[in-house]
């Protein structure tokens, strides 16, 4: 009896550092942001309770919907850019050997560097006056005039996505490799004996068995896309004409440029809801495949 209570006591004690941190810096802010979303905040003076006003303002704000749209479009563009190569590379590199280890490292390497460094790296390549990309394309006679890649709405979205894909596909690749390695070779052998071709193997064995892994990688990747801030802040500042301004950039603008903390809190809560909803939907989609 005493052993058990002593064990429980120690259990709580050992967990307390994490618990304290979580309570102060996670649970409390989570509670606070909801509270703040129902208030109007002044710089000097008390905050007043205004019910759903902030939410009404957020949902009727054009720029809110624009930012949400920009973020969604970006996620839609970048996700296939990440996953198609990632799946291809994972399939090619799933067996562990010196060769594959080398390639895996190369493709994972950009994941280790910061978004800031990557953004400036690629911004320099995309530069319209001195950039490598324009030079390469003009030399190969594919274009005749230098293009301001980050200056047009869709070209900015695509070019930033290319950078993000370059930077993050290694991560998805590694997760998929782990998933592939978890598929027993016996299944493939059985299929081969039955006369299945390579693409049939891929479509009827690999993909279905890989579903949970891909779903997991997708959740992480798409959630990451919705949180986009660093690269757009640095590469386009949300332009041109605010078409690359993401939701987090908008929250940052409302809260820290205009200091409208109540409205910012409401948008943050909506944003949180959207993210949780996306993850939930994807988990559900993954769940169906297991039947």
């Amino acid at each position: 009896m005493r052993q058990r209570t002593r064990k429980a006591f120690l259990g709580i004690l050992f967990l307390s550092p994490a618990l304290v941190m979580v309570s102060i810096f996670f649970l409390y802010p989570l509670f606070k942001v909801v509270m703040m979303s129902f208030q109007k905040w002044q710089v000097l003076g008390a905050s007043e309770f205004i019910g759903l006003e902030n939410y009404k303002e957020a949902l009727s704000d054009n720029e809110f919907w624009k930012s949400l749209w920009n973020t969604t479009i970006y996620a839609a563009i970048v996700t296939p850019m990440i996953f198609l190569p990632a799946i291809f590379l994972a399939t090619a590199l799933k067996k562990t050997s010196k060769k594959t280890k080398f390639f895996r490292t190369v493709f994972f390497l950009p994941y280790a560097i910061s978004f800031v460094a990557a953004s400036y790296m690629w911004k320099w390549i995309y530069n319209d006056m001195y950039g490598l990309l324009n030079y390469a394309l003009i030399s190969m006679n594919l274009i005749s005039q230098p293009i301001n890649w980050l200056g047009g709405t869709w070209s900015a979205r695509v070019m930033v996505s290319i950078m993000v894909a370059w930077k993050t596909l290694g991560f998805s690749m590694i997760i998929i490799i782990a998933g592939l390695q978890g598929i027993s070779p016996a299944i493939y052998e059985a299929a081969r004996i039955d006369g299945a071709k390579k693409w049939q193997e891929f479509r009827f064995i690999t993909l279905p068995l890989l579903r949970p892994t891909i779903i997991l990688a997708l959740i992480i990747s798409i959630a990451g896309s919705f949180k986009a801030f660093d690269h757009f802040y640095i590469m386009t500042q949300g332009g041109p004409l605010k078409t690359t301004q993401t939701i987090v950039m908008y929250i940052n603008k409302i809260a820290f440029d205009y200091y409208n903390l109540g409205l910012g809190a409401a948008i943050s809560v909506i944003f949180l809801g959207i993210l949780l909803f996306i993850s939930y939907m994807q988990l559900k989609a993954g769940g169906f495949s297991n039947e």
Partner: protein
Amino acid sequence: MPRKLIITLLLSIFLLSSLAISTTLVIWDQRPQTETIVKMFNEKMKNEGKDIRAKLEIIPYDQMVPKFMAALSARRAPDLYALDIIQYPYFISIGAFEDITEWAKDLPFFDELPQGMMKLGMKDGRIYALPFQIDLSVLLWNKGMFKEAGLDPEQPPQTWYELVEMGKKLTVDKDGDGVIDQWGFNLAGGGAGAYMFWFMPFIWGNDGNMFDDEGNVVLDSFEAEQALTFWRDLIHKYKIAPLSSVQYGSGDRYNAFVSGRLAMFLGGNFNITSLRKDAPDLDFGVAPIPKNRGEFATFGGGTLLGITSQCNDVEAAKEYMKFAYSEEAMVNAYAPNLMLLPRPSLYNNKYYNEIPQMERFAEILGYAVTPFSLKYNEIYDPVLYYFESVFLGKMEPAEAIKKCTEEIKNLMSK
């Protein structure tokens, strides 16, 4: 036991005496050069036996507003703040700054401070801050390129017409490969701040304005529309500026000018020091921004210096402020870096006199205009959106002006 007692006694005497070093003034500023003033001030206080010391905290540009807001709400605001001029109307309206009217008017140099900028530190006739560090928007031109194009290198364009005519001669495809290597002009972009700083002078120079003296929005005018059309035409009709320059930030245009790809450059006094360092062989001139049917105008930017309402020792703060405006402080701290002083009487100093390009600034300071708005940050949005739409050729100037004015009026009424 007795030893402990002695130590405690000594410690308390030490602590009590340190209380006598009463005032530490916390000063916020963006420019590291202010450190010189702070050091000089502390020396002076020491020599005069006064227990006042100043401490400088450098605030990066992006934190200028949020950090101040956070400090105000936590009652930890600094004693003095060299805040960007356009932010003052809002902060004065919420009571963040101290009324210094009588004291300011008695200052010996009060009358020479630029009045256009002084307005932003005032409310209902009361003064809360004084013009401090000045930034002015100007046109810089590459004299060598002018010579090559057969133009008089000492005659920059003074009117819109001249800008276009000269620009055409200065836009060249040097190696005949179909790609223009030297542009006559670049638009200014990279944010609404750029439009305010460099495009508004075109509206002002055309006798138009964004706000009138009472603060009403008067952007919806033929003069403003004409200016928008003019900028758009520089790219699409006269072809003396590249389309990509709509998004060119200050740095991009600077790079183009320095690397010999741009003949006329919208810049400011802050470019002069770096130009002399990065391109010592580039002979350039400084001129006011070309005008049309109005008078020369430049954006009066920079900072005002004010004492915050959370300052505990206003007399000490005033002492610092008076010193900061003295000839010895200003000339030694700011003039070596060619920063513009708010006192034209000090422009005849040894640092400025070495640089020929500094000559015109005393004159240009006289053209300074600064827009007054309580919601300056918020109006950035419609300004950026609608102006950029026009320059990219995506919206007609008439429509843009109308919609922009409407949105600004909306924002002002909230």
